[in-house]
């Protein structure tokens, strides 16, 4: 919903939250359901109400548990039947510098200050560890905003007694813990409050009147930020940018002005601001964002612009460049299809409000109001489209992999026989039980795969670890390499054993390896594992969603028999495991 996209009008959201919620629930949008425990060190009422809106907008319908006022610590540390029964999927601990209990006093020795720091840290550490032990779910914790006054003035940041220094040190300890801990995320309100303006954020009126740790008007920003972390945990990040060229990546209209006259590079202030924006976009590749172009231009001109010596972005940085006179919505749709991604996983960046309007209305993808060129970076950055909660090695390589895919598409076109093409790819697969180095990627894949996903069951990293450690499951990951490069882990299969029956909890595959016979290779390995474990029957389940139509008949294709189908289209399949099983994959060399 436009009203909930950055830059949003906080006053409007606060005032209209009831009717916004009604609209979101009535929009016909599909939601995943999650239970979120909000444990506050101050009032959380409106934080929850507004988080609810942003989460709904991100496709997450949340049920909330709210701690009693300021009972964030007690709620976890002491017996809590209500929270146990609630069984949260996520715990959000909303604390602020109002909850720091041991601020140092003037005259304390260095050692005394250090023990204050340790005491404050331990207070939280115990809470996180107990929460993890009892609930085994992702935890999101605020770090601390700066104090709104400084007894020591500028020295508050350098003197060990200063609160600014103290908060910096405490935040560093929080960050170190987060760095070393799975499923633990810091919400950086230190940064949020500074971008918002600490004087407004920390207006003490809200604390003394209502026991809010921040100003009401800043709550939407806080809630938006935490909703971004949550949607990222559940694999709802955007994946790709589609960018316009003229007046978006450079100043001027290349078709009219000529390549020598576009504004890009160090010569002019306008050229510099576009170059900085290009540098920002180029850096997105490093976190796995896929870059594409949709521009109304002759292709020749588009490429000439990107080959401009001062252009930071080069044609090679993009996976798909569409420069023609077709409607942009068509070009964006084509890009989505060619990359095997859903339109909703794109962000459309264009300086022209009319183009934004058409694309966002027709394709259900955000087209942020990026404002004037000097605002572009801020608007895209603050929108949190690509909020990083877990950066896997695959993310950094993603652009390369899509690039390789485009080359495969070209090669495919040159072969008359598809089998010959597959053979020419020289594919090598690694299909094995889960291994520690891949657990992050496996968990990420379970949350990101929507189309080739039979049950759409999502797993946290902790749950994947449990499956991996247990004897009651057969679990497989599949990695695929070919002559163009390594696709990384692209398929995951999990079945739980019940006597001599294997029930398939999960079968997913990344769409970037569709039609490569990888699914047959996975099936072959699954059968061989099943045989080794004395399994007689494999039962497959297909649960339809809005996105997984492509695998409706998947089990049939694998050789399963359909047992039943209910009125909502859920199907159950059966496969008899026999020694005489003949391998179905003919093109991938496995293990």
């Amino acid at each position, binding site marked *: 919903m436009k009203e909930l996209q950055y830059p949003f009008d906080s*006053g409007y959201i*606060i*005032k*209209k*939250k*009831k*009717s916004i919620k*009604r609209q979101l629930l009535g929009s016909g949008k599909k939601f995943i359901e999650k239970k979120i425990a909000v444990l506050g060190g101050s009032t959380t*009422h*409106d934080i929850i109400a507004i988080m609810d809106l942003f989460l709904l907008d991100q496709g997450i319908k949340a049920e909330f548990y709210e701690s009693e006022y300021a009972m964030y610590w007690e709620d976890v540390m002491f017996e809590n039947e209500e929270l146990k029964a609630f069984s949260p999927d996520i715990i959000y601990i909303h604390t602020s510098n109002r909850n720091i209990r041991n601020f140092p006093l003037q005259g304390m020795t260095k050692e005394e200050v250090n023990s204050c720091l340790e005491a404050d840290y331990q207070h939280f550490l115990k809470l996180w560890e107990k929460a993890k032990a009892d609930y085994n779910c992702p935890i999101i914790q605020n770090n601390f905003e700066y104090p709104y006054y400084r007894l020591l003035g500028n020295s508050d940041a350098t003197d060990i007694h200063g609160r600014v220094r103290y908060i910096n040190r405490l935040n560093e300890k929080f960050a170190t813990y987060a760095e070393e801990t799975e499923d633990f995320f810091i919400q950086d309100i230190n940064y949020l409050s500074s971008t918002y303006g600490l004087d407004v954020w920390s207006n003490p*009126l809200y604390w*003394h*009147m*209502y026991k*809010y740790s921040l100003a*009401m*008007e800043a709550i939407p920003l806080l809630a938006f930020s935490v909703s971004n972390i949550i949607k990222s945990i559940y694999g709802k990040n955007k994946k790709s940018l589609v960018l316009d060229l003229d007046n978006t990546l450079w100043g001027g209209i290349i078709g009219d002005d000529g390549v020598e006259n576009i504004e890009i590079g160090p010569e002019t202030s306008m050229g510099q601001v576009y170059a900085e924006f290009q540098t920002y976009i180029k850096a997105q590749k490093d976190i796995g964002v896929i870059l594409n172009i949709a521009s109304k231009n002759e292709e020749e001109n588009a490429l000439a612009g990107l080959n401009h010596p001062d252009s930071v972005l080069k044609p090679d940085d993009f996976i798909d460049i569409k420069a023609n006179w077709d409607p942009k919505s068509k070009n964006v749709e084509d890009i989505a299809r060619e990359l095997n991604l859903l339109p909703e996983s794109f962000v459309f960046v264009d300086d022209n409000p009319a183009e934004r309007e058409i694309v966002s209305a027709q394709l259900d993808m955000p087209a942020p109001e990026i404002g004037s060129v000097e605002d572009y970076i801020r608007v895209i950055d603050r929108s949190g489209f690509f909020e990083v909660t877990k950066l896997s090695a695959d993310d950094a390589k993603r652009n390369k992999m899509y690039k390789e895919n485009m080359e495969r598409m070209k090669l495919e076109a040159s072969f008359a026989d598809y089998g010959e093409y597959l053979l020419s790819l020289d594919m090598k697969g690694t299909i094995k039980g889960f291994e520690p180095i891949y657990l992050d990627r496996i968990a990420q894949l379970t949350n990101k795969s929507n189309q080739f996903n039979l049950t759409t069951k999502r797993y946290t990293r902790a749950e994947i670890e449990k499956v991996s450690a247990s004897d009651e499951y057969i679990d497989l990951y599949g990695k695929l390499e070919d002559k163009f490069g390594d696709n990384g882990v692209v398929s995951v299969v999990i079945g739980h054993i019940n006597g001599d029956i294997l029930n398939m909890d999960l079968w997913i595959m990344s769409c970037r390896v569709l039609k490569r016979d990888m699914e047959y290779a996975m099936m072959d390995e699954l059968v061989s594992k099943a045989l080794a474990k004395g399994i007689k029957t494999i039962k497959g389940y297909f649960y339809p969603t809005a996105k997984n139509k492509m695998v409706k008949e998947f089990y049939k294709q694998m050789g399963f028999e359909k047992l039943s189908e209910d009125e909502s289209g859920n199907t159950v399949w059966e496969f008899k495991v026999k020694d005489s099983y003949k391998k179905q994959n003919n093109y991938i060399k496995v293990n």
Partner: protein
Amino acid sequence: MKREEIYERLNEVFRDVFDDESITVADETTAADVEGWDSLIHITLIEAVEEEFDIRFDMKTVVKLKNVGEMVDVIDKKCSV
């Protein structure tokens, strides 16, 4: 600004905040007269009024407000300076 004009805009704010098109407030209206007007929604209401009239209530003023009429007095005073 005329008092009627303040009331017209104030009624809109109340209707938005309570998500109820039937609300009409007057000088004597207090929290007890409007269904759902608890201390939590009160915060939203104050924010929304501030936003609507582009004013800020200071703490001393907020804690003393007894009914809608007093709120209108404050708005009137703040908007006329």
